[in-house]
């Protein structure tokens, strides 16, 4: 390999590595905030008070019913004219992803929570547990076991969805890939990107396999 090709390949890999870090940052921050937020939304969605449950239904409808790309545009370009807030590109991406994924997670939690038999709550209550203790010690661990498969799907989708952040010019992996592919007129960046995404999702899949095994000790 001549030195010039080697140098450009090194540059490519370094920049794509940096793009991957941004991708991972979006991925991690999205999960960090949307997993708990989704739980809160699923509580609201299940509330017996219509004043809480109806807005939550509406929220889930909007977040799942409109394109994530539109939501990205809205957070980046729309908040300033409406509320005078201008988030930075990365901030806007994370906000949009968190709001969007929380809606999906809320529905997954809801499915899991509703699959737990009423008798578990009743046993908890009769034994003197508070509602919080019953939920967090009795119900939630069982919910987590049941929602692992759909959560795994969602995590994998998120890894790939981070590429949408390029529409507001976040320097994530896909953005860098596209830049190199068009400037170098080369297909190499595509293959490199594919490998990077596959490695990330390989790790995600592995984590879920391990988690499912860990929960396999009971039915």
């Amino acid at each position, binding site marked *: 390999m001549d030195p010039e090709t080697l140098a450009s390949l090194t540059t490519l890999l370094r920049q794509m590595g940096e793009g991957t870090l941004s991708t991972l940052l979006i991925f991690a921050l999205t999960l960090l905030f949307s997993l708990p937020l989704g739980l809160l939304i699923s509580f609201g969605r299940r509330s017996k008070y219509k004043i809480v449950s109806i807005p939550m239904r509406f929220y889930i409808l909007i977040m799942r019913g409109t394109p994530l790309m539109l939501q990205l545009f809205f957070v980046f370009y729309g908040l300033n004219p409406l509320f005078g807030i201008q988030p930075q590109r990365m901030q806007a991406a994370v906000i949009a992803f968190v709001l969007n994924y929380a809606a999906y997670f809320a529905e997954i939690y809801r499915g899991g929570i509703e699959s737990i038999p009423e*008798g*578990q709550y009743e046993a908890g209550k009769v034994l*003197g547990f508070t509602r919080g*203790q019953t939920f967090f*010690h*009795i119900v939630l661990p069982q919910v987590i076991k049941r929602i692992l498969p759909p959560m795994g799907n969602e995590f994998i989708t998120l890894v790939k969805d981070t590429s949408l952040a390029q529409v507001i010019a976040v320097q994530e992996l896909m953005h860098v890939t596209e830049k190199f592919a068009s400037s170098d007129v080369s297909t190499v960046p595509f293959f490199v990107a594919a490998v990077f995404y596959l490695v990330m999702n390989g790790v995600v899949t592995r984590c879920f396999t391990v988690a499912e095994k860990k929960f396999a*000790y*009971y039915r």
Partner: protein
Amino acid sequence: MSKEMVSAQNIRKSFGGQPVLKGISCSVHQGEVLAIIGPSGSGKSTLLRCITQLEQIDGGSITICGEELAREEDGKAVYADRKTCVRIGLHLGLVFQNFNLFPHFSVLRNITEAPVRVLKKSRGEAEETARALLKKMGLSDKESAYPCQLSGGQQQRVSIARALAMSPDILFFDEPTSALDPELTGEILRVIRELAAEHMTMVVVTHEMKFARDVADRVIFMDGGVIVEQGNAEEVFGNTQNERLKTFLARYNEG
């Protein structure tokens, strides 16, 4: 007369406008075994669920161990404040028809979880109690098993141990053998007999007539949301004049 542990006066309960309990008055005394029999849909479970606070009564009053859980005011039931309700609940244990064990906890943890979290016992102390209870239930070798690895009869014995670990003053059973294969009912009935011999106060909803007759100090026959007949086992099973009860018992004697 021994101490009155449960006193229910004229309790009423409807589901969606459909009355299910139509004025039930009954009491349970310390150390006695009360059997509740009656056709399916007569309100037996609902009565137990109202006393154990899984349902709220619409009218009437309930007093447990001298503390007023709900009193009647202008024809409606008014409940005590939450703290009192919780405290009263700790006097009662309930064994469910379908066990409702916690599937993600080992047998030992099923029994220790409430004493540790609710009664703030140390884990060591709770485990000691749990092991003693498991021994009594003939399940010493099962403490690290998970509920899904046990037979129905074993699961039900664990659930009895779980209830007993909270040292309730009264233990309620809602058809404890109905979800079990016939050959497994005996082991549960034996456990209840043993508890009766130790003068545990118990209320047992059951379709096991022979068991009710042998073990119960008193029997209540419910039908259509009312108590049709009550008395000692001899009065209820031996020589009742009540037509509904006669018809009900005849069905069991055939079978």
